[in-house]
């Protein structure tokens, strides 16, 4: 690599100086014309030649350029840079060390149990912190190992302290019998189709049902006498009505890529994301390319794509279409809904640049859900059911 020097030639006869330099075949870069001088870059090995042929001119070396300048600066500030690196490494080291593990629970037994379990898995004081995924794995392992003692477990990293929050599992004496269940209505609606796999259908096509009504009965009866109890299974679809109130903004922003982009670097810690270089793009979309991860700190290259944002406004018709599409999208996220039967805009008005609407929607939806019951309770309450009470559903 060529070693360039930035020099100043103090002269008012700039053209003479340049012609002389040209005659002696000196490579010159970045010539800047000043009022009484010329600033230019020449190769270091040409300096002697320049001084010899331009003996009548006053020449001073201003600086070095490129990597040599960087090298010189680094050498000059070596103590500061070494201290900075050392400080950074110490900070990284210390911020990734656990100094205390707090198990938050009233029971000493649970606290000791978890402390030992975590110690076995390398989570103890004066050790390095682990990543989020590793903590997740440890939680799962401990929950699996002590499934009869631990209901819920959370590891919360608070600086250099690890807080373990735990909920003890309390096992009740009574057992719910998961072999006996009804299918009940989760919503009110008119039955459109019913498919029974197990149990007795209690409703028919076009019947109106209310929330909580039994759709498929798990009790197999003959002449009002329960012969068998099963866990009812099947699908029950009903026409369910919804009235949706929505407010859709008419103003929106549209972003368009300009084609200009810049590289940048980011460092992401548990707390914050730091951008290393000053961003030269005002409005941007960022694409992140992860490089490596050290002590839970992620280093990444980011590509900043410049965008131009323009403010636009929907017409009332466009807003109506967009709002309806949004409602459809949200309804389709509910996988119980099979199809939208009908919809009608009941009311619409524009307030403060928002389109406010009331929409009526009728959908075909699976409304059946399981509800377990115990046979003992059923037998206890048989008399009640005969007297018009409920039939023992929990």
């Amino acid at each position: 690599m060529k070693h360039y020097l930035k020099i100043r030639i103090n002269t008012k006869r700039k053209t003479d100086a340049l012609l002389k330099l040209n005659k002696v075949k000196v490579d010159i870069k970045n010539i800047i014309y000043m009022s009484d001088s010329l600033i230019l870059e020449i190769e270091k090995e040409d300096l002697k030649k320049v001084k010899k042929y331009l003996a009548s001119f006053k020449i001073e070396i201003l600086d070095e350029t490129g990597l040599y300048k960087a090298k010189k600066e680094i050498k000059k500030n070596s103590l500061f840079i070494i201290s900075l690196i050392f400080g950074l490494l110490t900070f990284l080291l210390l911020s990734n060390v656990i100094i205390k593990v707090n198990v938050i629970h009233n029971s000493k037994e649970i606290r000791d149990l978890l402390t030992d379990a975590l110690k076995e898995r390398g989570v103890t004081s004066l050790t390095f912190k682990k990543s989020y995924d590793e903590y997740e794995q440890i939680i799962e392992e401990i929950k699996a190992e002590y499934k009869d003692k631990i209901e819920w477990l959370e590891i919360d990293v608070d600086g250099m302290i690890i807080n373990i929050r735990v909920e003890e599992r309390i096992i009740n004496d009574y057992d719910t019998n998961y072999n006996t269940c009804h299918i009940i209505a989760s919503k009110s609606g008119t039955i459109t189709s019913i498919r029974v796999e197990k149990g007795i259908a209690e409703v028919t096509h076009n019947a109106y049902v209310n929330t909580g009504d039994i759709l498929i009965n798990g009790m197999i009866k003959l002449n009002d006498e329960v012969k068998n109890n099963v866990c009812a299974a099947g699908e029950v679809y009903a026409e369910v009505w919804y009235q949706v109130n929505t407010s859709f903004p008419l103003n929106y922003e549209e972003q368009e890529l300009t084609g200009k982009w810049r590289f940048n670097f980011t460092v992401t810690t548990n707390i914050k994301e730091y951008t290393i270089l000053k961003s030269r793009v005002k409005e941007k979309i960022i694409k992140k390319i992860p490089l490596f991860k050290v002590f839970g700190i992620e280093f990444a290259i980011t590509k900043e794509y410049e965008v131009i944002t323009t403010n636009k406004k929907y017409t009332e018709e466009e807003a109506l279409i967009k709002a309806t599409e949004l409602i459809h999208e949200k309804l389709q996220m509910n996988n119980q809904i099979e199809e939208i039967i009908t919809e009608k805009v009941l009311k619409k008005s524009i307030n403060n640049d928002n389109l406010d609407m009331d929409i009526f929607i009728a959908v075909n939806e699976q409304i059946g859900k399981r509800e377990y019951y115990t046979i003992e309770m059923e037998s206890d309450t048989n008399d009640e059911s005969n007297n018009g009470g409920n039939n023992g559903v929990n």
Partner: protein
Amino acid sequence: MRIVKNLQNFLLDQDYYIDIFKNCLHVYYYLDLVSLSSTLIELKLKEFNLIIEGENLTISAMDNHEILINGLINNMRFNR
């Protein structure tokens, strides 16, 4: 820039190139800088002398083979 030019020269085997940009002139493979002022620059090329006339003409960079001239160029002539 030089790598591209060298490659171009190798592939096309030309004796010289003259590229004109906005307020900028790049001459590759000139033989000599004959005269230089803020209004006139004369370059010697293989087959002719290139005379550039304009205002505030300055040289931004030069070496044995190429030269980059900045300024408002009004006129260019070939003197054979």
